[in-house]
């Protein structure tokens, strides 16, 4: 009898213990990220740009674009191009962002960004007259006027030869990304800008020199492009076929 009672009590104790163990299941708390509050941006501030003869008042921020005037007078623009499908568009002549929901891609925008793809308002990308060209053999600082011979490129359909999925432009294209504005490290999936200088012809027939300087913001978030740029004094009058 004693033995039977002992066995029963042991069995009950075992069951209680096992039930207690089961109760632990899925008892871990749910994790939450700590929210980060970015420092405020002074929207009231403006950037003055010396556009040659005329001084222009620029907004500090317009849409997903933020402009900043560096100490050396260089204008740097930051673009949030994180959308995988929408092109964010900028009117270089005014510094204003344009809507991304324009299916006809009309308007006065000059340059657009979708992650690492850079397009201009011309060719297959837009209805405008814009085009772009890479300038070789000269640094950004040394480029002070539009070269006499520029081979402008209009945006074209994606070719089968390259391995990307975007339009072929002055900024993107070529086999294995040879004409891309960036180097891509396959091992770390990191984009690093190449030291390439570009010209962009705007809808107002002005010419901008432009160099892409980064693909990440200060926190390392991808597709926050930033580039320095300035108007050149001598506008080009003809756009050659790509």
């Amino acid at each position: 009898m004693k033995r039977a009672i002992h066995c029963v009590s042991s069995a009950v104790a075992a069951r209680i213990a096992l039930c207690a163990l089961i109760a632990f299941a899925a008892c871990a708390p749910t994790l939450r990220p700590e929210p980060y509050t970015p420092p405020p941006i002074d929207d009231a501030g403006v950037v003055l740009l010396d556009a040659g003869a005329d001084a222009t008042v620029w907004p500090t921020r317009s849409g997903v674009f933020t402009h900043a005037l560096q100490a050396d007078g260089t204008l740097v623009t930051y673009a949030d191009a994180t959308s995988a499908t929408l092109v964010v568009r900028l009117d270089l002549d005014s510094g204003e962002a344009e809507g991304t929901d324009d299916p006809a891609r009309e308007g006065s925008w000059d340059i657009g960004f979708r992650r690492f793809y850079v397009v201009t308002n011309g060719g297959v990308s837009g209805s405008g007259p814009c085009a772009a060209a890479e300038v070789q053999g000269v640094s950004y600082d040394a480029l002070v006027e539009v070269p006499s011979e520029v081979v402008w490129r209009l945006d074209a359909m994606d070719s089968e030869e390259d391995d990307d999925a975007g339009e072929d432009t002055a900024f993107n294209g070529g086999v294995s990304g040879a004409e891309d504005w960036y180097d891509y490290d396959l091992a770390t999936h990191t984009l690093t800008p190449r030291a390439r200088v570009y010209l962009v012809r705007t809808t107002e027939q002005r010419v901008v020199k432009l160099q892409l300087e980064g693909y990440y913001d200060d926190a390392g978030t991808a597709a926050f492009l930033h580039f320095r740029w300035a108007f050149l004094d001598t506008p080009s009058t003809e756009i050659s076929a790509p």
Partner: protein
Amino acid sequence: MAPHATHRRSHRALALASVMGVFALCVHAPGALSQPRRATPAPTRDNVARDATEGDAPHDDDEAIDDVLSDSELWLDRVVVTASRGEEQEDDSVERSLVIRRDAIDRSGARDLGELLEEQPNIRVLRSVRGQSIEMDGLDPQYTLVLVDGDRMPGRTAGAIDLGRYTLEDVERVEVVRGAASSLYGSDAIAGVVNLVPRAPSAPLEVSASLAGGAGVMGGVFDGSGSIGSARGPLALRLSFAGHTAPSFTLRPEPGVPADAQATTASARRQWSVGGHGWWKLAPHARADLRVDYLQRRLEGVDRGAGGAVFNRTQLGEQLSVGTGVTVGARGKTQLRVRGSYGLSREQLLQDQRQSNALDTLEDSREHLGEIRMQLDTPLGDHLLSVGVEQLVQVLDAPRLVSTGHRTRWAGFVQDEWTAVDTDAVVVAIVPGARIDVDTQFGTRFSPKLATRVDLGEHVVVRASYGWGFRAPSFQELLLHFENPTVGYVVDGNPALGAETARSGHASVELTPVDALRITAGVFRTDVLGMITTMTRASGPTGIQYSYVNLATAYTQGVDFNVRFQPWSWLTGSVGYVLLGTHDGEHDRPLDGRPAHRATGSIAIDERASRFSASVRAAVSSERVFYATADDGSVTRTTAPWTAQLDARVGYAPWSPVEFFVGVDNVFDAGDVSLALSPRTFYAGARLRVPTREDREAPADRGAEAGP
């Protein structure tokens, strides 16, 4: 199977026959090598433990304990269960298993399964931010099946089970079987099977506890564990707990990066677990058991993403595992086993970006894995026939999957262990087996295997085996949708994937010139076909799209040598060497990071008269080659240097139930980013065990000091 096999093996002294290609060596308990091959049926540890719970013998507790101990100490050190999916004597097994028993576990100082296995031959333990994984015979972690008491566990991450999940406080032994074992176990058993066999109590009260702390350059470590068990009448129960903390570490700091923003090579770990296992003798030849384990593990580290993004990464994992089974039938006769298990694995992965919320992600994944199986073993003359059926249900709900993964798999297997020749000079055993798996996703998979063992006298055993294996595609490979936010490439799963298949062959010769010495030499090769790899599927509006296909191939092959020795009962040791060759068929080059040469060794001293024990374990790996493909398709080859790992531990037991110990892990401070070993760590602690080993051995009155 073994209980049935032993009745006919009993008249043949040494040998059995059959082969599987496992001759890996183990750190043996003292006396293991000197134990003679026996000519009487051998009770197994599990049976002994279960017999201890039997209520049909009219003796009091002390008498029961004496009976149990005398039996268990005679035989328990020699039982294995994994190679043949049934109990059998280790030396009689058709396949040689690597067996690490309780005493060796204690002496090793290992805190978890990863630490225990990392200096074993043919095994490498790989560390990453997601924990520790096993590479066996040069094959990736997803090709090794990890079991707990024979039950399949959920919670693979990137194909690998984190070995750090498995603490060892309630483990009696760890068995490792190399080579394809899908003919018995089904999916994932390509490189081999690792099985943690639980420790069953055999006394009215058993208590063990261990407390240890230590420190290295990366910070402090703490480890505590304990268990309490009791075997009374028809019941036996063991409850156990464990806690473990270890800091993160960074092996190669990035220049110019602040210390708190350095990417961690391995994560900080905080882990605790509780478990219970009960055994119940239902009738003279019927017993049942129930096992419940729960573990919670928190891994924390720092990741650096492309472009310098810094993430505080937290992985909070929890696993619940329940297994229960009933065995009906006496040893040596027809025996039926029915077992069911359920596992829940929940994994939360939080990536909290510093200085921004843009890339914060939280993924909460839950996997359910249920299995029920039935196996019937029956002796038929010179044959031991085993047949079984299984059903597996697996469900995975994860954010990156386009839908909840769900699969059901039915399987049936049969194995015949046939003693074809049985003479004084030669014993030949042949073991054909096959299994069919029918899966709702990939269809039918047939896994045959043929193993043989030839005993030439008492000193030579030749083993050989050849089998097919397979690995079911993971739900990630089937249903993933992942988009890289940096450059926009997309990886999509492929629901049409088939299972990966493998052909695996092992052969070995084992010489035992004297009981204190065993020399083994072997060869092995495993070909993996239809390996799942990524390939470009198309270019879409968001970038290149990749998917998975069964296109890659690979093989690993090698030669290995092992010597185990035990010149005196207090000294055991082993040395091993593996020459490994690999080939990546997809890229036509060797597999990344495999050392061509690897040597292992261990020495253990357990001198009871002076209450002193010591152990040293070492592994030396040759250079490892890694390949990196650049954007333009060019391949860069880098070489990681030789690595020497050494762990040492010394123990002293001033009083019988208590032992104090000190040790050093990774004495040479080896490791680099390609082989993330924990930096050198010093530790010290104390262990309590009741009843003591002397208490357990006293009734048997064996000559512990007898030499070979």
